[in-house]
């Protein structure tokens, strides 16, 4: 789950990291300028749209106001301005911090080393993919032992290797330890500051990003649930699917895909593409799906406007083919038949029973996935 910048900075502040002085405005705030004045801020101030997408700055979501008049105008403007399709509910108003340099620092889990890894570069302000492309030599990596934690000397070593010296080096080290502690305590997938500003003797995170592992949210009662619409990560139908507990990802094509198991479902998409079709989605009914779940999934894909035909690829392991067949029939009964052709491949556990149930309802199922995919693509 992605956190808003102001949430990430609030957490960093709690961990002793110095962040810019700020005030949060919620949409509908009657006297924004008064509120900013009360917080002790004076122009120049930065007005930052709180949306959960990367690249806000370039998209016009971050502006500097030099006067109160400008501030008032910008606040009104940014509340109404969609950034990559998302309108903010909050604006973060911050003191403008003059800085000489912008650095990059982030922490993620290295999947193969199975350890946290710190990435830092002296070229902040652009995203990490861009740094990797333009200044690959500048990226410094350091793995951290998850039981020992990040030691000060290691943090200083990273700072040194991105060209920091003197008091800034020490400031960077204590910033990095704060960021690391947040990363670990909050089960983060990513903790990042980009840009991390250098001002005089110290560093200060001008931006901060925190993504929390969805599976760990139950541990963190101080983090409030996100509206899926606010994340900018999901399409309208993906949100519907999540509400129905379906593992669904929308794609660009027109062949609806249902499979059981993530690997098999992806493979089914790949097969459709390999034989000349275009998958409309990924929908995994998982292991051991019963009649009800199958029914929900089939109805969902028939309803999905972009599908012209549907391909169901089931290999029965724990999932029983007869349950799957019952689910398909139930879906068709509820809808009064399907306007879109349905091609079904059934193999594995209780295959014969499943095939029989479908045949009794006038549907033939394939055993061989390749024959089935050729059929669906030819329709």
């Amino acid at each position, binding site marked *: 789950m992605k956190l808003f910048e102001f949430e990430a900075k609030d957490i960093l502040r709690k961990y002793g990291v110095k962040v810019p002085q700020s005030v949060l405005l919620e949409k509908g705030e009657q006297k924004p300028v008064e509120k900013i004045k009360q917080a002790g801020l004076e122009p120049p101030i930065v007005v930052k749209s709180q949306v959960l997408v990367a690249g806000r700055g370039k998209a016009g979501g971050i502006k500097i106001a030099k006067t109160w008049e400008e501030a008032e105008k910008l606040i009104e403007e940014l509340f109404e301005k969609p950034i990559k399709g998302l309108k903010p509910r909050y604006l973060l108003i911050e003191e403008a911090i003059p800085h000489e340099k912008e650095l990059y620092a982030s922490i993620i889990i290295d999947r193969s080393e199975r350890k946290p890894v710190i990435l830092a570069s002296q070229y902040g302000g652009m995203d990490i993919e861009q740094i990797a492309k333009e200044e690959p030599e500048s990226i410094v990596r350091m793995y951290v032992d*998850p039981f020992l934690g990040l030691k000060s000397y290691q943090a200083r070593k990273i700072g040194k290797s991105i060209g920091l010296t003197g008091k800034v080096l020490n400031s960077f080290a204590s910033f990095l330890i704060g960021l690391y502690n947040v990363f670990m305590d909050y089960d983060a997938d990513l903790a990042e500051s980009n840009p991390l500003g250098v001002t005089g003797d110290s560093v200060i995170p001008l931006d901060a990003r925190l993504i929390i592992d969805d599976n760990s949210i139950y541990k963190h009662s101080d983090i409030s649930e996100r509206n899926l619409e606010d994340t900018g990560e999901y399409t309208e139908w993906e949100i519907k699917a999540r509400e129905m507990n379906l593992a669904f990802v929308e794609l660009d094509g027109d062949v609806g895909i249902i499979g059981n198991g993530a*690997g098999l479902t992806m493979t089914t998409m790949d097969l459709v593409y*390999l034989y000349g079709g275009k998958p409309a989605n990924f929908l995994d009914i998982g292991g051991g799906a019963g009649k009800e779940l199958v029914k929900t999934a089939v109805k969902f894909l028939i309803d999905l406007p972009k599908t012209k035909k549907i391909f169901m690829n089931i290999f029965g392991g724990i999932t029983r083919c007869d349950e799957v067949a019952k689910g398909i029939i139930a879906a068709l009964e509820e809808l009064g038949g399907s306007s879109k052709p349905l091609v079904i491949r059934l193999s594995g556990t209780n295959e014969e029973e499943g095939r029989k149930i479908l045949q009794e309802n006038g549907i033939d199922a394939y055993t061989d996935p390749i024959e089935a995919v050729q059929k669906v693509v030819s329709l």
Partner: protein
Amino acid sequence: MAIIVDEKTRLIVQGITGKEGRFHTKLMLDYGTKIVAGVTPGKGGMDVYGVPVYDSVEEAKKAHPEANTSIIFVPAKFSADAVYEAIDAGIKTIVVITEHIPVHDAMKFVDYGRSKGVTIIGPNCPGVITPGKAKVGIMPGHVFTPGNVGLISRSGTLTYEIAYAMTKAGIGQTTAVGIGGDPVIGTSFIEALLMFENDPDTDAIVMVGEIGGDMEERAAKMIDEGKITKPAVAFIAGRTAPPGKRMGHAGAIIMMGTGTAEGKIKALESVGVKVARTPMEIPDLLKQVLRK
């Protein structure tokens, strides 16, 4: 021989009284797996299909010192604790079936397990089967058959599909290992490949990968370095998966430009590993490499 589990496996089922644990205990017993004990805190003294239940792994191990392997069906919130408990009780092979375990939890218990010389499989995996000898997992036993090919896979159903295609083509498996679909797992392609390399009964290896991470690329590098001499073939799922989207498995995501199917296929092909375009091609590719 085989790897990870065999006829000497004596199993403890952690979370045996839950719905999944109970169901799969029955199926594993039916397959012939020797289950010596079950554990559910607070349910000590019960039995499940004749398997005695204990309150802790320590007690189970005391009553059944021959226990050497554990399978975990405990809910995600309590899984990390269950793994530490098994490690501290002296269990040397732990198979974690549970999905949705926080990645930081997995990172820590995997690290702890490695420091204690414990083999952890998973999390979020279908388990391990050595056909005809032992099934420690949730896979349908009947699609597998004894043979001389090692199978390593990040996914469940796709593994069954490929094993079934192999079985129909008369090619059996020494062991099939479902290593799991999470970002951090206890045993990666690299470690499983080395186990098969050292197993005298394995003549060839099938790798079933998918988008996300760089395990397949690292496996390719290891093959290139000559550490794996047995022939390997592969299938990679997710050629049509879009970047930035999790495809079912927590670990199946193309991020920051890494983890694409194309990249993995290229890496494997560049070191001479034949990569199947469809799972159905695996038996033919295996016949080619086994004939040599």
